């Protein structure tokens, strides 16, 4: 049986406690915002969507890649997935929990958050089903449910292993309930594999559709800088890109913390680095296409928006995006860099920051510089938004660590399957 352990229990609980403290402080800042209203954030005309919506899109992107990577690698029979699938799927659960906070934080009256759900007309809302924001509710709600099903289904055989082999006590009893009576009969395995394959197929399609819907929140508006048909594939590639970077950021220190260096080797990091490089090139191609068509179609508003990004008040952030997302990953063409955890950590951090800044620039720069020059404006986030964004990172890491510390960080049953396959070969 594969066993996993938490070598530094004190370190682990110390980190969980620290992260819990940080997001509790951010929650206090949010309460302050609720009490005094959204005026304490930097949101004002013309930039009414700012840091919160950029962070929402960022976390949704992170959420997408975890499950998609696991599902795609399963469908393509990439056997090395066993080592990263659990971490990637758990990252998805934590990221989507974090993302779902932001539409609520963005509300002036969050106690009316349930109005976001497209229920029928009893409250006289007369829901506009032609709005991408309503599609968002259907798409993200579906994604959340299916991701949890995919993650939980994968865990059932591992819960059964822990039920039968963990030390007696409450933990073991809980694993027993979560195993849903799994006995490992041939019929159970056949049903399990069949359902898992269906869910993997569904997830692969769902990820593309959900992030396309998120991109349509912008692309279906006529705002210069948003109204583009390339947004859907561009957002999907960006989501994968940021997600692979976040997996790296979690995996490299997580190998030490969870004691799984034997399972997550330099080969796995090398493969992930190649994926990151591929997505970087796709995202760079999307940038180039967007710039080319902005110049080529001679729409003066699109043209002016692009020049504003190149040279205006958001220019440092714009060029930072290009440096982080298109420049930094180029070092991964070197095989030595791909196998060096320190280089990978640095590149992943640059990409993660770059992808957040990219969403921020797309949202804030476009809204700040629309059609009417008399209505142009700027946007400067306040400490309230900054605290809540940092708090969201702590909230994500808190739930990620809490969940991954109490379940097998590496899929036990899949590792055994791999061993059987190797013995067979």
């Amino acid at each position, binding site marked *: *049986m594969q066993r996993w352990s938490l070598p530094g229990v004190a370190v682990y609980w110390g980190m969980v406690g620290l992260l819990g403290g940080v997001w509790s402080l951010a929650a206090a800042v949010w309460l302050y915002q609720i009490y005094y209203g959204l005026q304490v954030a930097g949101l004002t005309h013309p930039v009414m969507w700012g840091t919160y919506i950029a962070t929402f899109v960022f976390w949704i992107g992170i959420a997408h890649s975890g499950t998609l990577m696991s599902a795609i690698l399963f469908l393509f029979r990439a056997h090395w997935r066993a080592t990263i699938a659990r971490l990637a799927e758990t990252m998805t659960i934590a990221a989507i929990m974090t993302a779902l906070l932001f539409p609520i934080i963005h509300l002036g009256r969050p106690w009316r958050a349930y109005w976001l759900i*497209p229920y*029928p*007309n009893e409250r006289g809302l*007369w*829901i*506009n*089903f*032609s709005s991408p924001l*309503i*599609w968002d509710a*259907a*798409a993200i709600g*579906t994604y959340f*449910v*299916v991701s949890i*099903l*995919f993650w939980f*289904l994968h865990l059932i*055989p591992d819960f*059964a*292993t822990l*039920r*039968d*082999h963990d030390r007696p006590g409450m933990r073991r009893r809980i694993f027993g309930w979560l195993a*849903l*009576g*799994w*006995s*490992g*009969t*041939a*019929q*159970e*395995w*056949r*049903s*399990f*594999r*069949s*359902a898992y*394959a*269906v*869910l993997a197929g*569904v997830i692969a*399609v*769902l990820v593309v*559709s*959900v992030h396309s*819907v998120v991109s349509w929140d912008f692309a279906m508006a006529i705002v210069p800088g948003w109204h583009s048909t390339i947004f859907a594939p561009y957002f999907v590639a960006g989501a994968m890109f940021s997600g692979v970077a976040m997996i790296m950021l979690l995996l490299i220190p997580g190998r030490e913390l969870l004691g799984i260096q034997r399972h997550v080797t330099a080969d796995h990091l090398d493969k992930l680095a190649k994926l990151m490089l591929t997505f970087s090139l796709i995202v760079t191609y999307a940038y180039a296409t967007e710039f080319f068509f902005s110049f080529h179609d001679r729409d003066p508003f699109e043209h002016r928006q692009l020049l504003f990004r190149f040279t205006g008040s958001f220019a440092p952030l714009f060029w930072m995006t290009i440096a982080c997302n298109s420049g930094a990953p180029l070092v991964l063409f070197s095989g030595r860099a791909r196998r060096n955890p320190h280089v990978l950590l640095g590149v992943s951090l640059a990409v993660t920051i770059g992808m957040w800044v990219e969403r921020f620039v797309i949202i804030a720069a476009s809204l700040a510089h629309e059609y009417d020059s008399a209505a142009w404006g700027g946007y400067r986030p306040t400490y309230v938004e900054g605290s809540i964004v940092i708090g969201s990172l702590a909230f994500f890491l808190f739930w990620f660590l809490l969940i991954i510390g109490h379940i097998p960080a590496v899929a036990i*049953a*899949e590792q*055994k*399957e791999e*061993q*059987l396959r190797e*013995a067979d070969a």
Partner: protein
Amino acid sequence: MRRVAAVFQTREAVLGAIDAARTRGLMIVTALLPAYDAAVIDAVGVPPAWCGRVALIGGIAGSAAGLLFPAWAVAQWPRVIVGGKPLLSWPTFLVIAFELMLLGAALGAVAAFLAGAWRGRRAARPLSDLVRSSASDASFALLIECPPDRAREAAELMDSQGAVTCRVG
């Protein structure tokens, strides 16, 4: 009828035991495996799972709900013009229908898994409970059914095939 449960260390041993039991005319109830192993599952003779078909039904139901729910909600609207679009904007409902199709398919697959797994477990109990901890570690277990007068013969057969433990239930 009586049941015999035998635990084996390797998949080759359990595959050999399945063949030997079949040759002697003993009925294979099921095998308990530590991981998914298509060769052993096929040797036991497990029929294909229903997950794909139930997912298809779930997908159809989900997409129908995704089209009909917005249409039903919009049909109650007062006469409001939204962006010049007709109230019953079927193309825009397709996005919701698509997402709910995927939700329905996923829920259908999981429901089929739960039903299939429950049926598999029920057929194997209660003897499977005695050997399942071996199978959830790294061993294989085989459950066979035979008339009471052949139980001893079945147990001896399992021993001869390399069983590390054998229980008669």
